[in-house]
């Protein structure tokens, strides 16, 4: 019976597997061709859209584009994570649904969609419903300032090219702390509340070194604008020797590693996933969530992972510039490389204790960051 | 273009709301929130004047420093609230009346 069922399943899934593969290919090609696509689109907007609406249409198109990428991101990232986890643990991971389980995430998504929408009886309904929305809004809003590349005519491919891009990014990520507090309090569950408060304390604490390390970069480049930071890293030997991570060896390398650690902590990833430590707190702030609301938190978490990886790539790894010139796909490759590193770490390292987590931040990361900032500033003014 | 008066009136409204809260609320943390409203109303004034009257950034520097001060004050105030709460188990100002003013 089971064999028979599997046969039907395989027959059904075989062709469907093409969907994620084709989808991924289309997205990647679009990203690679983005400078060209964008130039064509903006020309079309200039010609076909009335003058008053041009800006609105451009922003809408950009928003739709990056929301599409962000919505697709977790589907692949979750599959990837399960595969990485499995291989670290000498297993195969999802294999049933589609080729090497490629359709697993789609299936899970459908399941989550149809799950009953539960709100605990004594929960604070307003906050409980609001929390996932704030979480996802915070994660997505930060992407607005992330530039993906530059066009041939020098225009920056970002929904909004703010000249205080880095500051905006740091500011908006602090909204995440609010959403977990909302979820923790709104659930009216002690595990959720503890998890929420731990998460908020952790995010707020690690925001400090993150900001300082960003300043290390800003001090060297002399700009808060992300495209300018990337532009400063172009050229050099093989197109990579000007990447900031290789400058002032080993200062920037340390800064990069610390930044990545802070990123892990801010997104509550292992070894810093104390807020949702299964063995202590059930599932932390999202203990009481299910169905789509739970999926929203998931979406936000994977969005944040990608965000922090993209930012690390932009600040330290040259963003979209590299050995093959300048292309948005390079940024994506670097960012996804860092995402894989995050997954790898998650399934390799044990979890820290709460006090260790805070000690790492306040006793080591912050002082070292300050030291780096001072040294870099001094060196910059001497050289 | 939004005229200066509109900013000022909104800030005055925010100030009045803060004053109302300080007069009527009795929870220490809530009073702190109302104080933040007052700080923000002053900051709106400062930034608006900096743009419309001075034409330089003096007001913005002032506003930035006010934000810093607000952070310090909030941190110290909440530390005191916590400390008091540990002793008395409540933060209602009417009941914190061992000392009669």
């Amino acid at each position, binding site marked *: 019976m089971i064999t028979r069922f599997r046969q039907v399943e395989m027959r059904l899934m075989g062709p469907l597997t093409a969907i994620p593969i084709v989808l991924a290919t289309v997205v990647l090609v679009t990203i690679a061709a983005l400078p060209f696509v964008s130039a064509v689109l903006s020309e079309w907007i200039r010609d076909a859209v009335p003058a008053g609406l041009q800006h609105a249409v451009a922003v809408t198109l950009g928003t739709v584009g990056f929301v599409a990428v962000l919505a697709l991101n977790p589907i692949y990232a979750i599959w990837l994570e399960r595969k990485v986890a499995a291989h670290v643990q000498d297993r195969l991971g999802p294999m049933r649904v589609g080729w090497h389980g490629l359709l697993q995430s789609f299936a899970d998504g459908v399941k989550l969609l149809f799950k009953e929408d539960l709100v605990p009886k004594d929960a604070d309904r307003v906050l409980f419903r609001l929390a996932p929305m704030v979480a996802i809004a915070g994660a997505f809003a930060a992407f607005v300032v992330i530039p993906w590349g530059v066009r041939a005519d020098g225009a920056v491919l970002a929904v909004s090219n703010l000249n205080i891009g880095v500051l905006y990014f740091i500011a908006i990520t602090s909204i995440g702390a609010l959403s977990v507090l909302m979820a923790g309090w709104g659930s009216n569950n002690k595990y959720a509340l503890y998890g929420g408060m731990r998460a908020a304390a952790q995010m707020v604490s690690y925001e400090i070194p993150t900001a300082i390390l960003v300043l290390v970069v800003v001090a060297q480049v002399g700009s808060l604008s992300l495209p300018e930071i990337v532009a400063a890293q172009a050229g050099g030997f093989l197109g990579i020797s000007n990447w900031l991570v290789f400058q002032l060896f080993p200062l920037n390398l340390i800064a990069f590693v610390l930044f990545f650690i802070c990123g892990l902590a801010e997104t509550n990833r292992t070894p810093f996933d104390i807020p949702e430590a299964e063995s202590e707190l059930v599932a932390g702030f999202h203990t009481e969530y299910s169905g789509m609301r739970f999926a929203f938190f998931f979406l936000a978490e994977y969005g944040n992972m990608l965000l922090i990886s993209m930012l690390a790539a932009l600040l330290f790894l040259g963003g979209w510039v590299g050995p093959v010139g300048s292309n948005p796909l390079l940024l994506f490759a670097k960012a996804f490389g860092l995402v894989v590193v995050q997954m790898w770490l998650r399934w390799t390292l044990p979890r820290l204790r709460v006090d260790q987590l805070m000690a790492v931040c306040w006793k080591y990361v912050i002082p070292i960051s300050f030291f780096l900032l001072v040294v870099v500033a001094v060196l910059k003014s001497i050289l | 273009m939004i005229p200066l008066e509109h900013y000022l009136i909104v800030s005055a409204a925010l100030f009045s709301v803060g004053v109302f809260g300080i007069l009527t609320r009795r929870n220490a943390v809530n009073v702190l929130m109302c104080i933040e409203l007052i700080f923000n109303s002053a900051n709106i*004034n400062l930034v608006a004047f900096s743009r419309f009257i001075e034409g330089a950034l003096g007001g913005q520097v*002032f506003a930035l420093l006010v934000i810093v001060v607000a952070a310090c*004050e909030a941190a*110290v*105030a909440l530390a005191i609230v916590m*400390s*008091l709460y540990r002793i008395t188990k409540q933060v209602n100002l009417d009941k914190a009346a061992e000392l009669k*003013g």
Partner: protein
Amino acid sequence: MSDALASLGRFLPELLLMGALAVVIVADLATQAWSLARSRNLLVGLTLAGLGAAFVASLGEPGGGSLFASMIADDGLLGVLRPLFALTAIFTLLFSLRAKELDGARMGEMVALLLTVTAALMWMAGSVNLVMIYLSLETVSVASYIMVGYRSSDRLSNEASLKYILFGAVSTGVMLFGLSLLYGLTGTLDLYGVRAALAAEDAGPALILVLLLVAGGIGFKIAAVPFHFWCPDVYTGASTPVTAFLSVGPKAAGFAVLIRFFYSGIAQPGADGTFAAVGGVDWQGLIIVLAVVTMTLGNVAALLQTNMKRLLAYSSIAHAGTILIGAAALSSEGIGAIVTYLVIYLFMNLGAFLVVILVHRVTGTFELEGYAGFWKRSPLLTVAMGIFLFSLMGIPPFAGFFAKLYVFAAAVEAELGWLAVVGVLNSAVAAFYYIKVLRIMAVDPGDGELPALRFSRLDGALLLALVTPNVVGILFGGALEQISEIAQRLLDLA
């Protein structure tokens, strides 16, 4: 940049204090493992050295002009008040060694706070820019809040601190709103620029509103009625050395800000040392009302007190009212009188608090009944208290008399004779409660046979240091004249 570097040389007292702050913080961390007494001695020694150095560095004639791009006026007012603040902090530190409330407490944070607040008082006294006024005032306030709540396991201390911070934050917030409106009216943050702008164009009712709002912030710092509600509670809840500090340091700095804001910001100096209000608002009436109400309410409320610290709290409110008479005179003599008063007030008020600390050490109470029969236990302490209280009363030949004399003379000079009469009448009322304390100490029989009091050498030295200036006030006449003159002559009214 070069301006900043040039200013640093004339900023030595503050720099020394900040250096001492850094040293003390590191020393506190490095000596965590030491025994309490040992680390305490080290920290107090380091702090004393820093404060002493700042005191010495702050003596001498001020250079005139302004520092740090017109942020601080390096004038006579600052020149006189800088050593006063350093001295207050030194006394406070020594008091805290003898205060029973602070026995066994770690001193690391206390000395750090004391150093910070001393420097901040100096910044406050020198501020001639709205940003500086606000920021230094807040620094003093935040440090004071923490000092009041220092005994964090004590309920009274915490309640006092909470009331203080909520009241303080509201008053400074209201003041900030006023400052922001003033900035809008004049388009500048510089106090002299404010005066120039107001002299050019009347501001009308808007300026009245600004003055009322700003008076809230300054009134809070000098504990003037109706912004005094925090004062008795905070004085009672804080440990006595901190109370003593608050009653002298921030009050003096508050008066400095008041002088700067009203005399440099919204008044024009005339030819014969008088000032005329600018901006179309005659604010003299505001100060007069504040002075009368503050004096009267402080004194009447003090009559009803049975707790020594509350009594001194209301007495300090009343003194603030008396000093305000000097501010209402609108003359440079008035400024001189205020500064003289503040200098003398330091010695008499700190002296009274020292006695309170020493009495609390043996009786463990601040209630007035605890003072009964002290004449038998320690005639010396009773006599010292008598001198401090007579001085506070304003009885000749003690220094307090001259303080009041200058203020009243300035008022009479400014044709405000009736205000001086109100002040004298108030002093008469004040005599009642001061004498009540003395009567309890000297006449009331204590219960039973209590052992005689023994002083440590430090107590003796402190008493001597505080009694002397009060007793020989009359000999100090010349020195006082000089202080007053420096404050007036070099008040930079550019």
